[in-house]
């Protein structure tokens, strides 16, 4: 059985929020939209986002790290948000493990948002339905897109490739390899929700220099021969660029 998920590398996320805005851009115009904004140009603006980045500091000066922590629905394998739903609007797909909300059935009772231990669901105060990350279900199977673009919008947008997407049940997938080999972990496993999304931890980087790398074996100075001087006519770029 397939379980699609995101694996997010906290070691390279720089907190640029490109995933946040590209998510909203894609989804507000798709079947999961709209994603409304209240007081958009006034005091205390607030709105619906399926993906948010929280930034926090760890440790005391001078041993401090600033962590940027992107958060979205984790598409739990045992999602507590689903059984609490009185109308069956919240469901987990058999075929790919994506957890979705059927807006036609949702009555906005918010049981699911109470049940989600991660705070990943957002009620839309205007449509009165519950919304959340869909893993861009309307992109990833869209055959009118080039194959390389059949990925969630956040994955496409991330400038540092902090976000990987794939099937965590396929042991050979990029995401499974990343989880296995780079210490991938789920959030709050003690709740037994079995989040499908995983995070890769911060790592310390150290460099090792080997002495033999400091000497250049193929020094071209010894191989070159003299060539005749060469001149060109007419203007060149360095006559006219000012910067």
């Amino acid at each position, binding site marked *: 059985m397939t379980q699609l998920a995101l694996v997010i590398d906290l070691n390279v996320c*720089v*907190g*640029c*929020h490109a995933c*946040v*805005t590209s998510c*909203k*851009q894609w989804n*507000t*115009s*798709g079947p999961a*939209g*709209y*994603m*409304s*904004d*209240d*007081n*958009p*140009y*006034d*005091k*205390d*603006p*607030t*709105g619906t*986002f399926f993906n948010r980045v929280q930034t926090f*500091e760890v*440790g*005391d*000066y*001078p041993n*401090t*790290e*600033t962590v940027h922590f992107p958060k979205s629905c984790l598409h739990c394998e045992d999602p507590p948000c689903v059984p609490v739903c009185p109308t069956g609007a919240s469901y987990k797909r058999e075929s790919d493990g994506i957890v979705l909300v059927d807006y036609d059935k949702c009555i906005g009772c918010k049981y699911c948002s109470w049940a989600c231990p991660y705070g990943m669901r957002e009620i839309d105060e*205007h449509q009165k339905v519950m919304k959340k990350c869909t893993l861009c279900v*309307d992109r990833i199977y*869209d055959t*009118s*897109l080039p194959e390389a673009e059949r990925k969630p919008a956040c994955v496409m947008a991330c400038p540092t490739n902090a976000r990987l997407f794939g099937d965590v049940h396929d042991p050979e997938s990029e995401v499974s390899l990343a989880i296995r080999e780079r210490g991938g972990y789920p959030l709050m496993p003690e709740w037994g929700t079995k989040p499908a999304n995983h995070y890769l931890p911060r790592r310390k980087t150290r460099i090792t220099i080997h002495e033999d790398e400091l000497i250049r074996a193929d020094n071209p100075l010894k191989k*070159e021969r003299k*060539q005749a001087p*060469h001149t*060109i006519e*007419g*203007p*060149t*770029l*360095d*006559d*006219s*660029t*000012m*910067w």
Partner: protein
Amino acid sequence: MRGLAAHSNGFHSIRSLSILMSILGTIDRPGGFRHKAPFPRPIPPCAKTPTGPEGVQPNTPLAGMPLGWPADPDDLFVDEQGEPVRIDKAFSWEHPLAVHGLMHNVITNAWRGDPYKIDTLMIFMANMAWNSSMNTVDVRQMLNDKDENGEFKIPFLVVCDAFQSEMVAFADLVLPDTTYLERHDVMSMLDRPISEYDGPVDSVRVPVVPPKGECKPFQEVLIELGTRLKLPAFTHEDGSRKFRDYPDFVINYETAPGSGIGFLAGWRGKGGEKFMKGEPNPSQWELYEKNNCVFHYELPRSYQYMRNWNQGYLRWAQDHSLTRYAEPINIHIYSEVLQKFRLAAQGRTPGGRVPPERLRKRVDTYFDPLPFYYEPLEAQYSDKHRYPLNALTQRPMAMYHSWDSQNAWLRQIHTYNYLYVNAQTAQAAGIVDGGWMWAESQWGKVRCLCRYSQAVEPGTVWTWNAVGKAAGAWGLSPQANESQQGFLLNHLISEELPAHSAGEHISNSDPVTGQAGWYDVRVRIYPTDAEEPEVSSPQFEPLQPVPGQSKRPSWLAWFAGGKKGHR
């Protein structure tokens, strides 16, 4: 500009770093400091500005480039007395190697009439009445100030902007600009292209939506102006129009008649078969569009490294007119260029140009041919006991280079800013986390919110730049958090140094390059009194809505009209 260079000791700091890299042998080596075309480039030879007032004549094109690379005192743009000719005083003995100009001093100099008065100031996409100026409160006054005859000191102010910014509010004439989505643009080989390490890259923007209302791309305005003023670059011999519009200009402009070098390096030549150099190609825009708006030439692997001395690369660069000479481009560890200026200051260049008396010591000190560390100039003239902390800013990544950070989504990411203070420093000053506080420099003070941080060293405080806005600006409501809780740190910095031996009005900039010393400021911090209002300070009279400005909706639900799968 931010970072190591954005201080009045920035030139020598960056030079130290570059020399360290050179000594380590990492220049254009794998994992080192890699070059991007059209670099590396030798200095000298290079483009030059005029060298005296005679280079500026009415109804005559400038006798040289507007910006250039002086390599010798004779290249400076100064008068008989060695005093500045340009309004920003760039390329003068005050800032000899000011290759970017000193935009941050233009308003103050024009207001003072030093070195001359102006009748028109034209500003494009620079928020000089807010976060693009140092000493914002005074600069706003200068923009409105009148002389003894009741005439404005800066009589006519033209501002081109796509948004209702703080600067637009001061304009006599507003030229409504388009956004990037509504116009043609080039990231040109002639001006900071987007090259990669493996070879030259340049790119274009093409409009994806039509302009709104009467908006016109600023480039079109400039071409129209140039044509109507009959500037030689824009007209034929008989005075008739040379370029239809901006796209036509981009295709057909050449750095010199028939040079084959123009804005775009890709698909040159009649049929698009040439690159870097070649005749204008009438279908160049279409070819860029077909190629995702990018031209990328990948150099052979053997040309990708050690380009200062890579004979293959240098020959290639010469053959494609990137550079005139295929000689090795040596790195100046000891700089002859700097030493020439120093010798002049020491009076050891008989018959040559010498700095005015007041600047001799300054040039002698800072034109050291080897780099050295010195305390930033402003700090040298500050009372460091009264103002013990450094203050600086950075731009938040979510808004980096975005001209419309007031948009509904971005402003939810950063709605207002805090001053980040090391927790111990803040506690010692009696300021609580999330509480109101004052930050004060020798120039001014701001009331703002404090956020404790462990990620900043105890002697420095910082905040996000340009999140704070003036009430009513950018189409936001006057109650918006940006103006009531957000604040601007620019009120604490000055565009000029305190009067000292080198002059009364010396720019607060690097003495070699004129790069603005954006944050060399020293501050002190203290809590607000209990009875003070909980609002950031200074506040300005809220901007009133302009005619035709759309009403702010109470809520929004964007829905882009594209077909499914249509990007």
